């Protein structure tokens, strides 16, 4: 079953080309010969790594870039091979992708949707990138995903946690390995209930933009289902640096849990401020006051320092995992760079491998063939009975058995609930894995109300 | 009843009574000088005439119409032009461009969105402006940057700009202040020539008695915000009150 089709666009464009080409001494026109956008014709293939290199997420971007370089090395058969040996699919041989040497270009998203699209466009138009990957925020991921859909290349999302990326804004050419707000809520809520009890009053501080809203909605729904009450939800401006005026009202609100739906610099500052105001030492009606940070990142945890100790959150992956895949990845990353990889680095590395694997299995770089290989399988996760439980099942990439689901191009896998470590042994040892929430618990149907409204559309091979 | 009638004008700045009950009339086609010691309120009075200040009480009528509450540009459009103590010209523009702007203002009014034609091709304006440059003896400087000229030339340009609008009343605020003797004499000659050639009323504020007595038909002496005397030049010269208040030295 191939979903590739000759689009009207292709025909029209050829028409335009012939029209425009009359007056010019045409020697060879590249576009008319290609079956899809940027079909690699030489001995190499170019991937586009689009990460934030400037702006507040530059450190995460740098870590993503390290992971990409590592992945390219491994794909080209250099280095120790990393997860290539633990990956359940054995299509990748370390001889590039489909026998073509992997080359790459990098760009700067600046964590702005405009700049990210400009950068991605230059990769596609100038450098002939066949796949774009990366990013450290949902706004950028969704914007670039839309662009790749229009341009007819594959987009392998980096760090993006908003439900919308594979919900209302999902696209046939876009794929997400990272988990999302709903999964965070579903994984975190039971752990929170087990540790803090079912009778809690939560106060939410939420970053006032799309990602913040979807995460808040997810966490509130999941905790309320277990008996918690959501006392208040206050939206904070993205540009806020000092959260004191948002934290102060929490003191007298009667709430006994503070949920910080913040990420990056916002999270570091709001958590620091919350601890400053003594919230962690506060007692409300005989209960210890608690703080929760639903989406954790080790790089951010480092910025928040001492303040993260004992605070629950969820994460996509952590370097202290002991499965073979994680160990192999941490080893090759740590050996090369001298410190363990972040979750952003992990998801980017894995996405690159998954793409390469899909191309190799499909035997073609055609985005439609890649889509078919990446999610078109009939395998399914054990223990979940659902129509939607089908796609490409793989293992050995650090998260256990994982399903790339056909219906929305979202990966389903176990989710890690972590807690800030009380006695870290090193500057990297900041989080400890409290629970690995099984995938069945974070499963949702594609038509779940939080994800409804979108349409994958059809894969677009471009040209 | 003159072309400009100032009646009972008072103005206070905080604790300072700058003008109190000034009444003054300027006759058409005359040169009326207003003199007085520093702080007598000359500049305040002038500012009240051109809309920069609004007096607390009193009225200022120009040709039967009140100027009070109008903006400087409206008052200019009524026919009053002002020359400043330090020449106010468009320093970044060329002399010719400087001269064309008042011509446009006279032709097109206070605002005209004329964004597509070329200003150098507006024949009528160009001709008026160039004629005025010739009148002012500045035709050879037409392409110069206005800011780079001597102070005397700037003054000459400013007066020319005012005249090019054919004002009915020309207000001069110490036109020779800070000028060398030669420049001062040139300016006096220029003003005399204007007075002879044109149907124009001139009100002049001046420190330099030489200038005042060579030009004025009528003189008002202002002291501490009030008109002390108004008379013909020859009478002012001999008036003891004036000597006491203004010249001081003989008292």
């Amino acid at each position, binding site marked *: 079953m191939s979903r590739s089709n000759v689009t009207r666009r292709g025909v029209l464009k050829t028409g335009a080309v012939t029209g425009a080409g009359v007056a010019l001494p045409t020697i060879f026109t590249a576009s008319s010969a290609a079956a899809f956008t940027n079909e690699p014709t030489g001995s190499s293939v170019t991937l586009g790594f689009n990460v934030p290199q400037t*702006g*507040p*997420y*530059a*450190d995460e971007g*740098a870590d993503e870039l390290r992971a990409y370089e590592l992945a390219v090395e491994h794909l080209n058969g250099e280095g120790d091979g990393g997860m290539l040996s633990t990956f359940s699919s054995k299509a990748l041989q370390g001889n590039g992708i489909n026998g073509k040497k992997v080359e790459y270009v990098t760009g700067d998203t600046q964590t702005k949707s405009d700049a990210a699209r400009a950068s991605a466009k230059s990769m596609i138009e100038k450098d002939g990138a066949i796949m774009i990957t990366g990013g450290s925020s949902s706004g950028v991921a969704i914007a670039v995903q839309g662009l790749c859909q229009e341009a007819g290349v594959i987009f392998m999302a980096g760090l993006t946690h908003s439900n919308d990326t594979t919900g209302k804004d999902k696209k046939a050419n876009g794929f997400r390995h990272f988990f999302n707000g709903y999964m965070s809520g579903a994984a975190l809520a039971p752990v929170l209930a087990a540790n803090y009890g079912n009778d809690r009053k939560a106060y939410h501080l939420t970053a*006032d933009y799309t990602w913040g809203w979807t995460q808040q909605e997810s966490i509130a729904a999941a905790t309320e289902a277990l008996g918690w009450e959501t006392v*208040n939800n*206050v*939206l*904070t*401006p993205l*540009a806020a*640096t*000092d959260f*004191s*005026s*948002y934290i*102060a*009202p929490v*003191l*007298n609100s009667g709430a006994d849990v503070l949920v910080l739906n913040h990420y990056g*610099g916002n999270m*570091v*500052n709001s958590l*620091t*401020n919350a601890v*400053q*105001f*003594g919230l962690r*030492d506060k007692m409300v009606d005989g209960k210890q006051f608690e703080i929760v940070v639903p989406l954790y990142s080790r*790089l*951010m945890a*480092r*910025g*928040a*320092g*001492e*303040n993260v100790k004992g605070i629950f959150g969820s994460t996509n992956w952590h*370097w*202290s995992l002991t499965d073979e895949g994680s160990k192999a990845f*941490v*080893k090759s990353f*740590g*050996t090369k760079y001298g*410190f*363990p990889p972040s979750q952003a680095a992990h998801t980017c590395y894995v996405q690159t491998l998954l793409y390469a694997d899909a191309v190799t299995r499909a035997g073609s770089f055609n985005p439609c063939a890649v889509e078919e290989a990446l999610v078109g399988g009939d395998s399914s996760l054990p223990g979940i009975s659902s129509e939607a439980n089908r796609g490409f099942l793989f293992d050995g990439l650090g998260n256990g058995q994982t399903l790339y689901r056909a219906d929305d191009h979202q990966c389903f896998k176990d989710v890690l609930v972590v807690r800030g470590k009380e006695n870290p*042994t*090193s500057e*990297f*040892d900041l989080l400890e894995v409290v629970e690995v929430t099984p995938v069945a618990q974070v499963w949702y149907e594609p038509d779940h109300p939080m994800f409804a409204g979108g349409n994958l559309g059809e894969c677009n091979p471009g040209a | 009843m003159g072309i400009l009638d100032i009646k009972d004008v008072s103005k206070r700045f905080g604790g300072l009574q700058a003008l109190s009950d000034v009444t003054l009339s300027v006759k058409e086609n005359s040169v009326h000088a207003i003199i007085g010691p520093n702080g007598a309120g000359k500049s305040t009075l002038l500012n009240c005439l051109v809309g920069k200040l609004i007096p607390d009480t009193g009225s200022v009528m120009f040709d039967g119409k009140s100027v009070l509450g109008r903006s400087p540009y409206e008052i200019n459009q009524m026919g009053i032009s002002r020359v400043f103590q330090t020449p106010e010209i468009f320093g970044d523009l060329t002399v010719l461009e400087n001269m064309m702007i008042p011509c446009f203002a006279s032709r097109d009014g206070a605002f005209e969105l004329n964004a597509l034609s070329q200003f150098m091709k507006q024949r009528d304006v160009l001709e008026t402006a160039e004629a005025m440059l010739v009148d002012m003896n500045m035709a050879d400087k037409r392409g110069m940057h206005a800011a780079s000229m001597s102070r005397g030339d700037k003054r000459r340009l400013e007066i020319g700009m005012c005249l090019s609008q054919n004002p009915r009343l020309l207000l001069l605020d110490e036109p020779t202040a800070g000028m060398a003797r030669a420049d001062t004499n040139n300016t006096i000659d220029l003003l005399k020539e204007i007075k002879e050639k044109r149907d124009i009323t001139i009100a002049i504020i001046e420190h330099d008695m030489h200038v005042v007595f060579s030009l004025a038909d009528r003189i008002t002496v202002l002291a501490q915000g009030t008109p002390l005397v108004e008379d013909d030049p020859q009478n002012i010269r001999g008036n003891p009150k004036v000597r006491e208040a203004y010249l001081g030295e003989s008292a």
Partner: protein
Amino acid sequence: MDGFLLQVLNGLDKGSAYALIALGLTLIFGTLGVVNFAHGALFMIGAFCAVTLQRVLNLSFETIDETKTDFLGNPLKVKTPYVESWFGPEVGATIIDWAVPLSILLAIPVMLLIGLAMERGLIKHFYKRPHADQILVTFGLAIVLQEIIKLWFGANPIQTPPPEALMGVANVGAIVGLDLPYPIWRIVYFCFAAIIIFAVFAFLQFTTFGMVVRAGMADRETVGLLGINIDRRFTIMFGMAAAVAGLAGVMYGPINPPNYHMGMDFLVLSFVVVVVGGMGSLPGAVLAGFLLGILESFASTTWATTTIPGINQIIIYLVAIIVLLTRPRGLMGRKGVMEE
């Protein structure tokens, strides 16, 4: 009531930072007539003085602990700061603990030097240039400074915790019988800001140096005619303004962990503060700083955001517009400054 007072405290605290930055900006603008877009960067460098001292104090030698392993499974290297081995673990730990307050000692000379170098090396050549050029060149400098910091310290925020003794909260309302828990360090910051502001005003009011500078702010040419070397004094003023910004930055670290772009975050806001206060007016800058801080705090309360959605996002700008339209030269501005 408690909530109300807490927000007043928050406002004063935010206002302290605004006021200190705006004070420095106004000193520079008032004396030198230069619009300094790099002032936020000076604030940021101040904060990184604290980070640097913290790093220096934490310089460590490594010993290998065979019993533990690191993330790659190799024996763990345990780091011991030199300070601890020199002064003994306890004294050493205390010194490290007090890194932020100690940084003041480092920041004053460093910031003065940076300020002097900036004025002599760059700003000096821009006195006669249009404000737009000044803005552009100092903006360029701000970018360069912040990128250099980013190169060394990375983009992520870095914790600079306050000394153990100044952590936690104190009940500031206890005296009047109210329950007003407030973070100690924020109280420290407010007091610190008050002292600096007071010191600057006293300096300008009561010293001959200050008198000359004030006269120079009022009319530069006249003072020049008196044969006083006003330029040198202005250079020193620039250094002082830089030091004020730097100190504001040093002490700000424990409130919010410093990152390389914190200067830019404050820049626009502090310009709004300066303008609302009135260009060139020192009391205006301080007043506007506290005023906007308090208004910002109140706008972020649930009451305000439910009454007018999004008010917390725009309050500062809204106030700026209203003030500028009703009071043409800001709250306490002088006539004719920066209007051409």
